[in-house]
């Protein structure tokens, strides 16, 4: 485990939605301590509360009980700008991670915190972005609007944008869901680089192999409760897979 044990703390987090007049307990008292720089893999069946947990940590929803603390401060107390500078959420839906009417260059420029503070010239930035986009095969499409990219390319862009943000916590909600194996590999490479920059990552996945091979730790949620939490060295593929198939075969 890396240093910074009190970096991101989720305390007794409870979130309840009302859907068609019925209360849905999305999260039921989840406790989690994520040290700085850790790459946490979050798994669980559909509706287990993974996306809700990311949204609560990302300040998108107000918990009914408990709180998420970042460096000792409640995340819900952070305002728009300071929250965005601390936590960045990469959505599951590729269409949500970029602005479709802006060009590839503009999408990177508007997200690039360093360019904003250093007042770099657009010429120098174009060279920088060209180098960033080259491994993704998008360097020749910098002047094109993002809406001309495929869903997978837009999802890669969203992960690349995370690299330009100053945020110390990056939340990745199934970033590989829309990607073919080749692009998934590229995306994993980008996520590895984010981890290499010392950023704290929480990545949701439905890929059983990734759940045991990627990241420093794997956590499973089921019906809003934390049911599995092991470091990379102690992860059991059988135990993790069991959380996707929680019911006996005959009852399914």
């Amino acid at each position: 485990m890396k240093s910074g044990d009190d970096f991101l703390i989720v305390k007794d987090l409870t979130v309840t939605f009302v859907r068609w007049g019925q209360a849905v307990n999305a999260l039921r008292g989840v406790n989690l301590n994520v040290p700085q720089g850790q790459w946490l893999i979050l798994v669980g069946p559909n509706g287990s509360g993974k996306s809700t947990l990311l949204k609560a940590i990302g300040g998108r929803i107000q918990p009914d009980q408990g709180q998420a603390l970042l460096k000792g401060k409640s995340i819900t107390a952070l305002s728009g700008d300071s929250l965005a500078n601390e936590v960045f959420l990469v959505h599951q839906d590729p269409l949500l991670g970029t602005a479709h009417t802006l060009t590839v260059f503009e999408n990177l420029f508007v997200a690039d915190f360093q360019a904003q503070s250093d007042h770099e010239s657009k010429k120098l930035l174009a060279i920088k972005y060209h180098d960033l986009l080259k491994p993704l095969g998008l360097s020749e499409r910098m002047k094109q609007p993002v809406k001309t990219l495929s869903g997978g390319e837009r999802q890669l862009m969203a992960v690349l944008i995370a690299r330009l943000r100053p945020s110390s916590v990056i939340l990745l909600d199934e970033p590989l869901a829309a990607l073919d194996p080749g692009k998934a590999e590229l995306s994993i490479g980008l996520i590895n680089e984010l981890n290499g920059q010392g950023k704290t990552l929480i990545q949701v996945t439905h890929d059983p192999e990734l759940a045991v091979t990627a990241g420093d730790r794997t956590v499973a949620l089921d019906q809003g409760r934390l049911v599995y939490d092991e470091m990379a060295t102690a992860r059991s593929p059988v135990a993790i897979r069991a959380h996707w198939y929680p019911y006996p075969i005959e009852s399914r």
Partner: protein
Amino acid sequence: MNWLVPLDIGLSMGLIFAWAVLALALAFRLLSFPDLTVEGSLPLGAAVYAAILKSDGSLSTAVVTAIIAGAIAGGLTAFLHVRFSLNKFLAGIIVVAITYSLSLRIMGASNIGLLQSASLFDFVTPLDRATGEIFHAGTILFLAVSLVIGATLLVSALSSRRGMRLRVAGSNPEYARSLGISVPWNLIFGLALTNGLAAFSGVLLAMHQGFADVGMGLGVLILALAAMTIGERLISEKKVPFHIFVVLAAIFGSILYQVLVAYAVRMGLAPTDLKLVTAVLVLLVVAFRVSQDGELFS
């Protein structure tokens, strides 16, 4: 030289209404806000301008105050939407209703004559006289130059980081929040800007026609929609960035639409049928575009 008369009218009207078309197009395409306020902010701009001139206010004060009044109307529409989650159309309709009564109050009557008042066109009257009574080259030149300057400023503002943030807020609010961009404030600022442009269109219209009338905004929406739709067929989206495409399409669409209307009226189209013809024209252009994309009736 009678064939020049519709061209003169069409060019003048096209260049004047281009500001209102820009207002609608920028709100609709860049902010994803189908803004009906334009129908209210245009006559409000004209009313404020006329009322100030009639109260012996200066020309510059009248123009600036009129633009501010339009901006407030646009800001109010956005505020009603973001603060009370009011439907975008409903917010626009409410503000149009407010501006109608407000324009009547401000003018103290349903219209104000401005033929004896100072106007920005006074500077180009000698050129108009020099080119004869049929074609007002001075007026057209003045309108064209001011539109080119305004559009250039607008494009450079939208190309700046601040402008990009505005466009991100309009294009993808969720992504904007991820970047710490305030969607409500950008929407309020954006609609204030666009309705300021619509109010300026009202000012130019009042100057050109020599009066301000409370009903002069009637039909502006369908006119602007037609111009925008035509313009988007004229300009290639692939050649320029999207915000420049929107600006160019609005300007050229407005000019072409007004020239076509002027010639159609000259050829015998009854002015009473104009809105019907415009609506059919919009539908035809949309149907043509959809059929080209292979989506008609699918």
